[in-house]
């Protein structure tokens, strides 16, 4: 029986360390700054264990029954700690740290009670010397085992939530085992057994259902109802709806809100295209949602619009789902529109078609792969596809939040010989947004718009081209494939904004 109890010390110690590691890892993962998170979690936990040990003096009778109850409480509280904390983080951001330290403290107190109680149970059969030596040996061995298993097996294969529940189950099994071992000493174990079986059931259900947990939590990361959710080989596409507001998220980044996307797409297309009455052929790179194409199709003189987007899942979605077709006015089904799913870089290399107007609507330059699409080499390639009087417009991130990034795009376009005209517009769901027109000759803003608009007017157009002091030009290096300086600017500037 002593061996069995010592083995349960091993299990208990593993569980105790596991909860501590889970809390530290979860808070580092969600809040960042792992040094602070681990340090404060471990400190709180050890302190709470001290309190638990001290409290153990007040447990005077029914040691085994108390031990069983402590195990059940640790199992349920610790087992669900990761899941609960994750839910709290997703639902209400503010009290997360309060909940974290309360949970750590609570588990710590209970774990602190365990070892003193076990030592007192074993005291009846062992000398003090052997007791301390054996119990502490298994205590530390358990800690070693879990500290190795946690990063190598548990987190990679089970994840934090299910690892927590697994250790909760182990605590409850120790309790059940103790009930069985001491069945002769214990009287009236009905309630204890009931509590144990309920705990076991709850944890088992939690473990089985944990698979659905992630999608449930993700649903709440997005404020609104998810109406479409797909992971294509290229990206994670999510569309949400709240009343009449449709929102597109790619890899969790907002791409548009149907409430104000017209501001973005009018500003992207019309300042350039309305100055080109002779334009016949238009190229759109990126923009698989068809919203820029919708604006472009307002010009009846155009003969063709070629849309090159990497992801067939995007263009198919926006060509088939009714609310989205309504939003882009069925632009992708227009007989003038040719949709090509290809890597824009490869397509530009492999083709020699010329265009009078080019819309470059790529995601922000947040990694090296996308950074290539903002490089001098890319713009040189683009220039080869432009007719003599052609204009290109480039979405160029925010001149307010990422000022140097924006002006880096301008410098890069200028380095390959383009005459540039930077401008900006306010899109409430994004903030102040920037665009750059590039051509071979100086550009004159339009005196008026021949097409219907909701945002642009001839009177307010000159203001688009004026940059207030906080967005005025700053020096920026040319973004080249061999320096990828734009990605570095962008990373540091957005980091300032979001931290």
């Amino acid at each position, binding site marked *: 029986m002593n061996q069995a109890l010592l083995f349960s010390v091993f299990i208990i110690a593993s569980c105790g360390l596991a909860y501590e590691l889970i809390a530290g890892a979860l808070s580092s993962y969600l809040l960042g700054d792992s040094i602070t998170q681990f340090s404060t979690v471990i400190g709180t936990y050890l302190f709470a264990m001290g309190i638990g040990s001290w409290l153990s003096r007040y447990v005077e009778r029914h040691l085994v029954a108390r031990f069983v109850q402590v195990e059940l409480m640790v199992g349920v509280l610790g087992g669900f700690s990761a899941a609960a904390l994750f839910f709290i983080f997703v639902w209400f951001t503010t009290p997360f740290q309060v909940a974290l330290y309360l949970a750590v403290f609570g588990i710590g107190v209970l774990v602190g009670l365990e070892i003193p109680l076990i030592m007192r149970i074993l005291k009846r059969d062992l000398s003090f010397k052997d007791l301390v030596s054996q119990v502490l040996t298994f205590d530390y061995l358990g800690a070693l085992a879990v500290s190795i298993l946690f990063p190598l097996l548990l987190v990679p294969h089970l994840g934090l939530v299910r690892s927590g529940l697994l250790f909760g189950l182990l605590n409850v099994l120790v309790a059940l085992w103790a009930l069985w071992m001491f069945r002769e000493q214990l009287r009236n174990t009905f309630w204890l057994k009931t509590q144990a079986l309920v705990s076991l059931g709850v944890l088992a259900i939690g473990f089985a259902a944990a698979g659905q947990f992630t999608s449930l939590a993700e649903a709440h990361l997005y404020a609104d109802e998810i109406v479409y959710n797909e992971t294509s080989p290229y990206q994670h596409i999510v569309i949400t709806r709240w009343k009449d507001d449709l929102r597109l998220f790619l890899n969790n980044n907002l791409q548009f809100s149907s409430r104000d996307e017209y501001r973005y797409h009018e500003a992207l297309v019309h300042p350039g295209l309305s100055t080109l009455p002779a334009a016949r052929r238009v190229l759109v790179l990126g923009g698989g949602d068809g919203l820029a194409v919708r604006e472009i199709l307002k010009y009846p003189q155009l003969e063709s619009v070629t849309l090159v987007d990497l992801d067939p899942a995007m263009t198919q979605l926006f060509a088939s789902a009714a609310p989205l077709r309504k939003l882009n006015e069925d632009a992708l089904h227009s007989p003038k529109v040719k949709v090509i799913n290809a890597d*824009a870089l490869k397509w530009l290399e492999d083709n020699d078609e010329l265009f009078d107007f080019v819309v470059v609507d790529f995601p922000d330059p947040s990694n090296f792969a996308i950074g*290539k699409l903002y490089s001098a080499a890319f713009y*040189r390639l683009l220039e080869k596809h432009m007719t003599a009087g052609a204009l290109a417009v480039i979405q160029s991130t925010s001149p307010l939040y990422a000022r140097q990034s924006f002006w880096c795009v301008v410098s890069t376009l200028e380095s390959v010989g383009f005459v540039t005209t930077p401008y900006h517009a306010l899109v409430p769901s994004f903030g102040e947004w920037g665009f750059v027109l590039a051509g071979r000759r100086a550009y004159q803003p339009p005196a008026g718009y021949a097409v219907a608009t909701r945002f642009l007017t001839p009177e307010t157009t000159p203001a688009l081209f004026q940059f207030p002091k906080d967005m005025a030009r700053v020096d920026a290096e040319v973004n080249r494939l*061999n*320096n990828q300086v734009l990605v570095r600017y962008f990373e540091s500037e957005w980091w300032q904004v979001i931290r």
Partner: protein
Amino acid sequence: MRRSSQHPLPPGELLGSALETGHRLRQSNLPPASETRQVPVLIVGAGIGGLSAGWKLAKAGFKDFLMVELEAGPGGNSRSGHNEVSAYPLAAHYLPLPTLEATAVRELLAELGVLHGDARATHPIYDERYLCAMPQERLYRNGWWQEGVLPQNGVSAAEREQYRRFYVLMDDFKRRRDGKNRAFALPMELSSQAPDLLALDRLSMRDWLLAQGLDSPQLHWYVDYACRDDYGTGSAEVSAWAGIHYFACRDGEAQDAASDTVLTTPGGNGWLVDGLAQGIRSRAGDRLLTGALAFRVAEENDGQMHVDLWLPAEQRTLRLIVGQLIWAAPLFLVPHVFVGNDSLKAAARSYSHAPWLVANLTLSRFPEERAGSAMAWDNVLYDSPGLGYVVATHQQMRMRPGATVFTYYRALTGMTPQQGRAALQDTPREVWAEQILAELERPHPDIRQVTTRLDIFRNAHAMARPLPGLIWGNARRLFAADGARLRFAHADVSGFSLFEEAQYRGVLAAERTLRRMGMNFVTSLS
């Protein structure tokens, strides 16, 4: 081995330099010539040295020369291959920004349209497509990819101080000038010959580091890596002069790139081979005879050189009566080919050549990654027998790279060159493939699933090993000297295998030949 049974080894071929034909040099039973031809200038070997000699002759308007090459195509150590996915290197894969004194390299790059504007400018503009895209290199160490190859994570302050001192020493060497010569020039022939510098050629790189009080294990790993990478020989064996040359000679700069940027393409240095060959063809027509083994070179009583070629495809021997001979093949062949001339043969025997292995892994997609910095062009593994791999499609302008080719390099160090050559000859492809996949599996756990093909390219005598005494010894100087009818034009003449050296030797031999023939030309070398 359980894993490999789950994923059978990918198919591929065991390739190598024309081993069988080459080894016929060891026998002396090749038949006598069935035909004799007169050739005013013959170039033996169409690697970078031979091509550069032909390029310079053609540029000077001299067309009456012939280049003969044992392999099926030109290029030597700059050869490349290609499959449906990409071109890929078979050996050398980059060219650093040329130094100011590398005038012939700059002239070639300007001719190829890669260097824009004034070819002699301190900061020329280079074509962005040839400048290695970011990120250029990274190192896998302790389960983590870091930027750059010098180990950084968890390195103590004391070791970092040694890094700093090492770079101060290298910068001093880089800046030092004796008269108009840099301490370590590229081409090396233009280096200062101050006695304290030449003394560096008498000890190993490792011993030199230790003599400077530099004993940091990480620094030693890094320097050893650099020596294995450039010279196929570890720092305990490489001459300190050569080791320092690697760090102190490259001072090329650019207007549009950092000074440590390199020029590269999917096919490694294959574009330079194509450029040189095209430069010859457009000026002098087709001057190249491939699949031809020069097996006997003799200076006859008539004062002319007689060169016998074995043509395996035709199973016959062709004798060329040659006015001027440029030997642009590796020097280890000299003792097997030259008749008489014992001093040359003895000098050639004092060379030692490093065996190499290059593997090209065709991948259906990029493999899974470990944490840390993003996929770079050159990816180095710490504590590994290999030198890492370069990504052939890195220079491609693609958002989402699909299939690719990894070119894995390994100099067979840690054994004698003879043992290395024996290993190259005897080891089946499957054994190499298993070793390489096991090595790459550490940073890329699913490498076996994505590798669709694995070709091994063996080079038994890949490059001269710059051991102490070679660079500034008499044997090498003998080959560097001008002759009445015979000149040597190969990187071996410089003592190490760099593009700049091979090209310099080729152009120099061509200019000496032109001068001897009384032809007018504009020199490329000053």
